[in-house]
Structures are given as structure tokens and as C-alpha cells.
């Protein structure tokens, strides 16, 4: 353990590089875990918009053609 700030910052960079270098399957599994944790600590939504069924989404414009 150290209180040397530059060594602490370097250590953080090294740790992030090691994480970045892990196999993609492992990193995606970490994304699953991070999302579960984020959802667990997120406050409940006050606006009841979750579950709204959007049957007719707005059409997107086709490249090069004007909308009707």
C-alpha cells in the first residue's frame, strides 16, 4: 500500500488495462454482472412508463428519399 498519488494512478491504469485485455466473453459476462448491480441499486421508477407497448413506432427515412 502506498500514499504516492502517481503510483496509485498508475496502479489504476494498470488494473484497467488488465481488465481491457481479458477475453471478450469474460468482459461481456462482467457487463451482465454490472448491469444486475446497477439495476439493484437504482431507485424504483416513479413514472410508470416501463412496459409501454409501442405498436406503431415512427417510420425512419430511407436514405436519399424524402419522407412522404
Amino acid at each position, binding site marked *: 500500500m502506498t500514499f504516492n498519488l502517481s503510483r496509485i494512478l498508475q496502479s489504476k491504469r494498470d488494473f484497467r488495462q488488465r*481488465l481491457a485485455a481479458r477475453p471478450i466473453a469474460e468482459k461481456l459476462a*462482467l457487463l451482465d454482472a454490472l448491469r444486475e448491480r446497477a439495476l439493484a441499486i437504482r431507485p424504483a421508477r416513479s413514472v410508470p412508463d416501463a412496459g409501454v407497448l409501442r405498436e406503431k413506432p415512427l*417510420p425512419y427515412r430511407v436514405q436519399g428519399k424524402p419522407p412522404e
Partner: protein
Amino acid sequence: MNIRNTIAAINQMQTDGVIERYAIGGAVGATFYLEPVATLDVDVFISFRPEAGSLLASPQAIFDYLKARGGRMEGEYIVIAGWPVQFLPAAGPLVEEALTQAIEKDVAGTTARVFTAEHLAAIALHTGRAKDKTRLFQFIEAGALDPARFQAILSRHGLQEAWQRFEKQFLGDTP
């Protein structure tokens, strides 16, 4: 909740002809090059196939396909294998190019089509929100970008001034 299953489902959509071409962007796309960062959704960029007899393309076919297979809508998202997925049209020359030049990555036997690191960084610069600037800085700090390829993208899409501002603001004292 398993993002590999989400990617497999998107691949199946492509195989079944519901989408022509796709590429993963956003935080999930960045995870292919950087350390994982918490995110709540998956951004999937696609080229829409116009419906017969219409000049307009609609994502309705995607919604119908996924609903028939148990997909659940949540606002503008479709939940696939526990992950909310947002299908986004490749709007604008930069994202269109990113979609065209996206690369395939192997995820333990599952193929995922992902934007290149350079396109993800250029899109982050173009979008310019705080979290995008953070992501761009991460790409630079991690040495994940091919400088020549990145500069060529910036040049093609008129992002050189934005890049100079970013450099001045964030990279001025970088060793």
C-alpha cells in the same frame, strides 16, 4: 440475463432476413476494446429495409418478429435475453460508414458484428456528451486506436476541429 444470448438472437434476426446488416455500438461496443463499463442497454445500429410499396423504412417488422418470439417492449427498447436493446437507424455518413466497415468478433463461438474502435471513438467525438468524451479519452489512454485510421475518419467527416478542441481540453498535459 445473458448478453451473449442477446447477440445470438440478433444474429438470428439477420439470418432470418429481418435485418440486413447490424453492428453493436455504444458502451457494449466499446467493451470489445476497453475495460467493461456499466451500461443498462445495448445499442444496435442497423440499415432498415424499406417495406414493399413504401418509401419509408419501418422497424415494425423487427418488433413483430421479436414479439412473436417472446420479446417484450419497454418504451423504445426491446428486451432480448434480459437486455433492453435499442435498434437505431444508421443515420448520417459517419454512422453509415461505421456500419459498413464494422468488423466481426468471435465471442466464444458466437459472432458479433461491432463498430471498429476508430469509428466508436469518432462517433463519441461527434456526439460530444460528457460520457462520450470520457469514452474517447479511454480509447486514447488504452492505446486502442490506430492513429492513421482515426485521423482519416476525422478528416472524411469534418471532425478535425472538434478533435483539436478535444485535444486542447483533455490531452494538453498528457505525457
